[in-house]
């Protein structure tokens, strides 16, 4: 029973499952659009075959919409692939902007997501050596909290700056006041500690900061 309890408490697995569930939901939505659009195309062609005059543009428009959705699907699968490969190496040098863009892209699949704006980072803190999977988990948890607190009409601004010579700060500002949940809670603090990071909230301007050390030794 102990080993089963360990699985249940495994934050990494829970995070992986949560993200994959939201990706599968997004893919189902894409397939639903393709299904209805191709269904409409078929309806129109059947009507046309039955002698009703159908403007060719209507059918072409369906084809265009299907191609767009397929591209959206490729984009989603590409994100899924990048996320899955983030577990390949426990510690590696990662491009912070790419990592944040991936997590914001995945978090946007959540139905309660708000708008996100990512600021351009200074040259001296664009990459970092860390555990990409755990850092992704921290960013995702922060985004989920930010969405719940801010609401779908709000906007959260994400910036990166060098905090000290050996640490970088990822800041999420513009967080709303809608959520009563505490943040960071114990499990988030634990994940942060495992990569030498710290998650803190500054009360006055509702900003969450993730301080990430530049180097994590294996």
């Amino acid at each position, binding site marked *: 029973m102990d080993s089963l309890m360990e699985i249940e408490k495994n934050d990494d697995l829970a995070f992986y499952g949560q993200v994959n*569930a939201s990706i599968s*939901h997004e893919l189902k939505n894409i397939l639903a659009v393709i299904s209805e659009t191709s*269904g409409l195309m078929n309806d*129109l062609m059947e009507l046309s075959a039955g002698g009703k005059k159908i403007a060719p543009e209507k059918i072409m428009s369906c084809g265009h919409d299907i191609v767009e959705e397929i591209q959206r699907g490729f984009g989603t699968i590409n994100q899924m692939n990048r996320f899955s490969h983030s577990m390949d190496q426990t510690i590696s040098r990662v491009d912070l902007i790419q990592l944040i863009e991936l997590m914001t892209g995945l978090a946007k699949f959540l139905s309660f997501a708000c708008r996100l704006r990512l600021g351009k980072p200074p040259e001296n803190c664009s990459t970092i050596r860390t555990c990409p999977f755990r850092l992704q988990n921290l960013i995702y948890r922060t985004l989920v909290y930010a969405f719940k607190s801010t609401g779908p009409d709000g906007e959260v601004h994400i910036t990166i700056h060098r905090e000290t010579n050996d640490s970088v700060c990822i800041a999420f500002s513009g967080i709303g006041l809608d959520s009563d949940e505490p943040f960071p809670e114990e499990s988030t603090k634990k994940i942060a500690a495992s990569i030498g990071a710290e998650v803190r909230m500054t009360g006055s301007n509702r900003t969450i900061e993730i301080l990430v050390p530049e180097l994590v030794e294996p």
Partner: protein
Amino acid sequence: MKILLVDDEQKFAMMLAKRLALRNIDVDYVYTGEEALQKAQNNRYDVALLDVKMPGIGGIELKGKLKETHPDIKIVFLTGHGSKKDFEAGISEGAEYLSKPLQIEELLELLQRLKP
């Protein structure tokens, strides 16, 4: 029969509405729960097709609000998850449940069954 379709996946809502309209079904479609409540103020609907997960007012909350002003309205939840949990949520809420992607024939049969 008049239908209100609510889904934040805009193209899905638009395409499904067009397909229903081709079958002579009177359907209004909107993308948010808030828009749905506005529509419902000035229209009488027999059936509401509601996406479960939407920003703002979600499908289950929307069902409660619609029932306040339209006690006889029939509710069909549409969801991309299709899990047992969703299904049970739909049933326990006294509503029908369809999983996306939809089969149009299945939807038409259900609408026929719900016809007042």
